[in-house]
């Protein structure tokens, strides 16, 4: 196309509601005339459009009755605009303004070309208020129609490198104190060196008293940590703890009032589970026209990209290709996709996630209830393949304890909540305000939860569950867990750069809970074998050295840890599954101490990786469960 002839000046104000309605019906008629939809589909779409408060095009494309290109062609015809394919006729990069990238993504327009003193703006939404506000009423500007996928594609082509660079560096540049790019600060190095030196000298000069003191301190911290966890669980045994959104509250929501919701699904080499994911997202009880779903894929992950394309997804699904750059982490991919997000709220799901259908609506209610300070709502996570093997049972016990017992109690205490890996729902503006995810932190979610708390925002927990696939293979489990523990250590180090500042920001309750919950988690993983094995060895051998290491008071604390602490933690797992109503898992809780040994193996691997490969993302393979295989076969048969 050499010179687009028809040109219209966009009005300075959006059209009134009744005109818009008439216009929607006219577009619908044009689609019927072009045999793109049937009369019945038009009638149904108009009904849904009225129910959802969305536009006809979004409704039709969201349901999947019209292909985006066809719709935008008809819309161009209706608005008397030309239609261009930006893939074939790309935009002039020199016209792009990096300060406007956010507007381009949000309002779906971009400067295409300049000809004869006229600036041509390619848009997928000529009636958008953002477009009107920016360009409305200007005589030197003309508009040309394109599809939203072309806008997204073109924006990534031109700005992809910058987005990618920002995704990696923006937090580290804007707020280096919150970034894990520097694993350990010089001040922390001095502290660590001082403590090590003190330890070595003390061990050399006073070997026995120092060993006893160290033993006592570690045991005492663990005992307090156990007590804190017991308190959290005890609080969570209350049925009505935390924010419970009722079915009545969900039913009272009007679809017309629901905001646009962005769903990010970062994936890497997971083509097989894609159909399951799509099915789960389509089952969400949320107007499809108001979902902005982004499959965030690495640009070299051709198999998943091809698989996504082959599914013929409806237009509310977009594929975001993340350029190859280091570190190759999930948070970096999410930061990249964040630049293209348009919703008021945003959530993240993993590839194999199955959220409860009303989750997004519950979150909307929760945000409205919590008010303007709420930045994030975490949904509960649990597993659909709990009964697969011992490891999945242990994982389910652990997740039930974490999400059904610990997090609601932390929420009740108003202390920082380490977010779970998926199903965390953000207020998009606040997420951007705090600098989004730290791409150098391998438990970016936990870190973000703490950062929200430190910056004065509220993180809540909502009573909705997302079912995931529990790791059923030991090697895969160790890889995942070592990454988590490495991330916890990173998070602890980042937050402890300025302990006094942290104390002032989150208060004494928040500070203590951070130390006991995150610090205690790291310490228990690392110290567990050192505490249990020598104790057992001593019990059977009665070595004199060990005898002197456990004088009466230390022995009492150790015994309390060993007997009461372990018994309590076993029992807390039982309570968690009783609350989750998985009674079949109750007896398996008795075998939890074996699982703690595995945690220790993972903890040491995580510590080693922190030293050798701090930003390396240990990929967890999904889709290995027999349940997932069965579902893939089933969905393949249906396809």
């Amino acid at each position, binding site marked *: 196309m050499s010179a687009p002839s028809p040109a219209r000046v966009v009005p300075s104000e959006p059209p009134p509601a009744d005109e818009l309605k008439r216009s929607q019906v006219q577009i619908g008629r044009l689609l019927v005339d072009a045999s793109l939809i049937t009369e019945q589909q038009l009638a149904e779409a108009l009904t849904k459009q009225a129910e959802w408060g969305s536009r006809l095009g979004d409704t039709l494309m969201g349901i999947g009755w019209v292909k985006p290109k066809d719709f935008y062609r008809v819309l161009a015809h209706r608005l008397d605009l030309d239609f261009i394919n930006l893939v074939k006729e790309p935009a002039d990069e020199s016209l792009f303004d990096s300060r406007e990238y956010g507007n381009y993504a949000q309002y779906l327009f971009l400067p295409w070309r300049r000809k004869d003193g006229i600036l041509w703006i390619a848009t997928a939404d000529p009636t958008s208020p953002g477009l009107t506000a920016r360009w409305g009423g200007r005589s030197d500007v003309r508009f040309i129609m394109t599809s939203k996928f072309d806008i997204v594609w073109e924006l990534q082509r031109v700005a992809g490198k910058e987005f990618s660079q920002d995704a990696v560096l923006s937090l580290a540049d804007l707020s280096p104190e919150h970034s894990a790019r520097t694993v350990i600060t010089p001040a922390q190095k001095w502290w660590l060196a001082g403590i090590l030196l003190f330890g070595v000298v003390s061990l050399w000069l006073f070997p026995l008293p120092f060993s006893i003191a160290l033993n006592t301190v570690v045991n005492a911290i663990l005992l307090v940590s156990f007590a804190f966890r017991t308190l959290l669980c005890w609080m969570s045994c209350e049925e009505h703890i935390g924010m419970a959104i009722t079915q009545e509250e969900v039913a009272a929501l009007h679809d017309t009032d629901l905001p646009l919701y962005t769903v990010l699904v970062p994936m890497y080499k997971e083509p097989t589970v894609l159909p399951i994911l799509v099915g789960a997202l389509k089952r969400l009880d949320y107007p499809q026209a108001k979902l902005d779903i982004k499959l965030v894929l690495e640009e070299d992950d051709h198999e998943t990209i091809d698989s996504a394309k082959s599914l013929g997804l409806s237009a509310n699904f977009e594929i975001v290709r993340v350029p190859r750059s280091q570190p190759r982490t999930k948070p970096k991919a999410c930061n990249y996709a964040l630049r293209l997000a348009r919703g008021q709220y945003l959530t993240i799901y993993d590839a194999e996630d199955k959220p409860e259908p009303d989750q997004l609506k519950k979150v909307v209610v929760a945000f409205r209830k919590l008010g303007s300070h709420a930045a994030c709502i975490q949904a509960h996570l649990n597993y659909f393949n709990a009964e697969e093997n011992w490891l999945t049972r242990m994982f389910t016990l652990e997740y039930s304890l974490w999400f059904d017992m610990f997090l609601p109690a932390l929420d009740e205490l108003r202390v920082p909540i380490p977010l779970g890996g998926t199903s965390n729902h953000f207020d998009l503006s606040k997420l951007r305000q705090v600098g989004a995810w730290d791409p150098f932190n391998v438990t970016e979610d936990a870190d973000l939860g703490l950062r929200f708390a430190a910056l004065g925002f509220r993180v809540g927990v909502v009573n909705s569950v997302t079912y995931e696939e529990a790791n059923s293979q030991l090697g895969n489990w160790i890889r995942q867990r070592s990454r988590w523990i490495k991330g916890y250590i990173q998070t602890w180090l980042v937050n402890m750069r300025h302990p006094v500042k942290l104390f002032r920001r989150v208060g004494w309750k928040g500070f203590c809970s951070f130390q006991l919950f995150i610090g205690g988690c790291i310490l228990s993983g690392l110290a567990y074998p050192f505490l249990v094995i020598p104790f057992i060895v001593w019990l059977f051998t009665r070595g004199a050295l060990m005898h002197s290491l456990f004088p009466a008071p230390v022995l009492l604390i150790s*015994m309390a840890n060993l007997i009461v602490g*372990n*018994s309590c933690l076993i*029992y807390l797992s039982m309570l968690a599954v*009783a609350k989750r109503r998985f009674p079949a898992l109750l007896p398996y809780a008795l075998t939890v101490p074996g699982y703690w040994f595995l945690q220790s193996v993972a903890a040491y691997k995580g510590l080693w990786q922190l030293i050798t490969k701090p930003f390396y993302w240990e990929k967890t393979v999904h889709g290995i469960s027999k349940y997932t295989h069965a579902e893939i076969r089933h969905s393949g048969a249906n396809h």
Partner: protein
Amino acid sequence: MPKSVIRARITSGSRRWQIVVVVTCLLLSVGVVSNRHPLGSWVAPVTAVLMAVLASSFWYLHLQSGGLPGAWCFLFSFLLAAQSVAWLWRAPRVDVAEWQAALGCAAFTYAMLWVFEVHNREAGLRALATAALLLSIGILAKPPVLICCALLTLAVFFDERRRTGRLWHSMLLLLTPVLLCTVGVAILHALAVEGVADLAWTVDHNRLDPSPLHLSSLARQIPALPFCAAVLTTRLLMRKTASPDLAFLFLLLALPTLGMAPWMPKPLSIMDVSMIISWGAACLLALDPPIPKLSRTVALAGASLSLYFCR
């Protein structure tokens, strides 16, 4: 000046006054009891009195949270503390370990009755978890008390759990902590030739000096009985009887029986039984404090009578 401010000042003023009285009583009691035991270590009676006063202060708060006026709460808790001090006064010697064991058993009973009341009000996982966790701490109490409370827990919670799960699962939920703790201590006890596990057991048991209970002289030997009878009468008058009352009655009957059983490794002493009865009744009183004046007066008369018998 607004009325609320005046009321707040009066309240804070009366609270200050109460604290002064408590501290004075504490000092007087310590002085009196220490004077009674001039040759023995003064640490023992002081510790014992302090523990009694602390426990009474806790009861004061519990009564007050139930809506009983401050002055009445103070009166009741003063009488209970006085009973304990009177016990110490008439005892030929004060053994802190014995006293501690008796108070521990009483506190355990108090907590269990409270949990039953919580469950009675709102059945759910929290009451059950509290009971199960309490039972695990109960291994430090004497076996008859632990056995009675475990039986009561089963009776109170089993019906509810039976509806939500299988028998085996319900048993696991109710008894896992106490069984794990018992097995853990027993294994350590068996493994350690001299010392390790003994530490846990000797904290209270080995140093006890059990004086067996005689049914014929119960009323004379256990001065807490009038207070207990008064509290139960009060509950009947107020029509507030519920499962904690039944549980308490069960304890009244079962504890002396089990406590005197020849096969029982650690029998109960009179002090144990008296303390359990006294604090059990105190718990019942705090669960639903007597608001009508008649009920209050009956309970107060019972407490005074018990103090009289303690002399």
